[in-house]
């Protein structure tokens, strides 16, 4: 009872903080993009080789690109109010539909990467904290440092070279086997095979961060008085580690992981390009090159919302993990 009320309070506060942030993001995104020279009409004209002033003007008129910036902004807001993200001149289809096609792929990749990073990071961190300064700790520290310092696209390329080119175990790109209409378990396995390498190359950087963080947090928590109390109860080392040490060491990890959702979205642009993964990141990249602002705005808005939702989720998770977090009036 008391607990669910406390969680509701935390949720309400997190949402109240998220709403103005979302609005600010909206405004900044829109005006920031107008600072870039050129628009979709320029790019389309350039690609077609030649265009007269009249066709350019007609195109701009059709997409509302000739209106004053403020009017364009108001039109954008009114579209949003009608739950429409606008229309893409480049793809000639509604932005929402375009994003809808790409969103699941990216969410899947992000979820897998974050999950992988957390699982591996916890495991490695816990192993390293078991005997700080020992052989295992040193070996893993070096490995983790490597993960941390090597750029994601290079790891991606090297993984392709090893697992796709040399060993031939895993596909080098794409999202599913083309031409095969697999269903059920076989279909899921097929998708998973395509996700392993991009997921891993996106995750390794974060594995490094979480492993270091978990190691440090566990070492710190282990020297706390309540761990001695737990030992004095006669609990086994495993029970002490899982129930008392890990539980408390998770608190800083969740904070940082929440902040990483945005970073992973950024990393997805690179990884999706390397693995030709049909996701939001690559769509954003293509939209930039095509000056397709309505698509870009849509992607940015959605990404911002994703990060905001992730932050709210982390706030809530923290409140679940740590009873000391409560409403401060």
């Amino acid at each position, binding site marked *: 009872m*008391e607990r669910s009320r406390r969680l509701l309070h935390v949720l309400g506060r997190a949402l109240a903080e998220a709403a103005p942030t979302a609005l600010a993001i909206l405004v900044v995104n829109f005006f920031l993009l107008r600072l870039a020279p050129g628009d979709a009409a320029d790019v389309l004209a350039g690609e077609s080789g030649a265009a007269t002033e009249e066709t350019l003007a007609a195109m701009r008129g059709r997409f509302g690109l000739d209106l004053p910036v403020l009017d364009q902004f108001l039109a954008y807001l009114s579209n949003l109010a009608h739950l429409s993200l606008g229309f893409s001149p480049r793809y000639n289809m509604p932005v929402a539909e375009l994003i809808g096609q790409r969103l699941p792929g990216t969410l899947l990749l992000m979820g897998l990467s974050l999950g992988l990073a957390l699982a591996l990071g916890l495991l490695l961190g816990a192993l390293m904290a078991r005997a700080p300064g020992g052989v295992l700790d040193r070996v893993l520290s070096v490995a983790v440092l490597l993960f941390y310092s090597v750029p994601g696209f290079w790891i991606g390329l090297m993984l392709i070279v090893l697992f796709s080119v040399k060993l031939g175990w895993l596909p080098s790109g794409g999202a599913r086997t083309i031409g095969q209409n697999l269903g059920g378990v076989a279909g899921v396995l097929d998708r998973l095979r395509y996700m392993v390498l991009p997921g891993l190359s996106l995750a390794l950087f974060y594995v490094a961060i979480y492993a270091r963080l978990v190691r440090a947090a566990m070492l710190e928590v282990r020297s*706390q*008085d*309540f761990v*001695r*109390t*737990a*030992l*004095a*109860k*006669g*609990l*086994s080392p495993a*029970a002490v580690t899982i*129930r*008392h040490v890990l*539980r*408390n060491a998770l*608190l800083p990890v969740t904070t940082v992981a929440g902040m990483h959702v945005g970073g992973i979205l950024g990393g997805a642009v690179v990884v999706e390009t390397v693995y030709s993964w049909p996701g939001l990141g690559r769509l954003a990249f293509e939209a930039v090159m095509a000056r397709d602002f309505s698509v870009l705005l849509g992607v940015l808005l959605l990404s911002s919302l994703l990060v905001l939702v992730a932050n709210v989720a982390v706030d809530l998770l923290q409140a679940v*993990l*740590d*009873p*000391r977090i409560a409403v401060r009036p």
Partner: protein
Amino acid sequence: MALLDVRGLGIAFPRARPVRDLSLTVGPAETVALVGESGSGKSLTALALMRLLPPGGRVAAGTIRFDGQDLGALSEARFRRIRGRDVAMVFQEPMTSLNPVLSVGFQIAEVLRRHEGLSARAARSRAIALLDRVRIPDPHRRVDAYPHQLSGGMRQRVMIAVAVACAPRLLIADEPTTALDVTIQAQVLELIDGLRRDLGMAVLLITHDLGVVAQWADRVAVMYAGRKVEEAEPDALFAAPLHPYTRGLLAASPRAGGAGRGRGEPLPEIPGSIDSALGQPGCAFAPRCPLAEAGCRAAPPPALVRPDGRVVACLVAADAPGRPPARPPRAPEVRRDAAVGL
């Protein structure tokens, strides 16, 4: 036979030996106080009994027998079955000794589930009963409370509930009241003593508060720089301290031994500091001792048992007259005005 029989205990760290040649017995249902100033090794002794010495520390010498069983010979897994069940400990810092993210009910139930194999439900109702037992009001509601929602005194009660959950035969209380304010201190000690009587458990009370010793202990062992310097019943000790260190301590108390001293005069003090004990080949107290002789600095004086049953480790004071203990086995109502902290 003594319940706890420690002989010649030595604790070693890579660069220090904070406890040497310590012998101590605790009988069934007896309260033995271990007193000494900070750094005298009393807390380390307690942690050694629980095999909870901080990293780097180890028992380098001596035997610890509990109920006739040599604890040092037990494997880690066998020892864990005793720790928390037969021997339990209450720590000094109630503010940090409980896990902040787990409810107090869970933390009490945890020890019951570990040692008595109770189901979560059964352990919970036992936890509620234990909270009631340690006089926490409204235990049905408090069982779901988290440590930060409780006061220091309440938290220490919870710690006591954890410790006595499996009805241990020996409770080690390491300065259980140091972090609490004075009114709560008395309540907590009274609670521990009540539980001692009800459960028939022995208590090893580690403290630096002579008032606590006077009121609650059946026997008191005084430690200085890692060694036991004197052991006696509190009445005898307060009436006629034998060891120069104990004498100095009592003389430095505002009332005890201060007879003949006029108002406004400064309290007598023991010259020097405990640091002077470092590297002494002989008696650790010799550098500060007004009675030290040449022989004191040669070798540490052995702890000798006198005919009257008192133990003192001092060459000079060994033959000094000590008042024979004339005191009923336990008189909790005896309250000494000598009550004072070190």
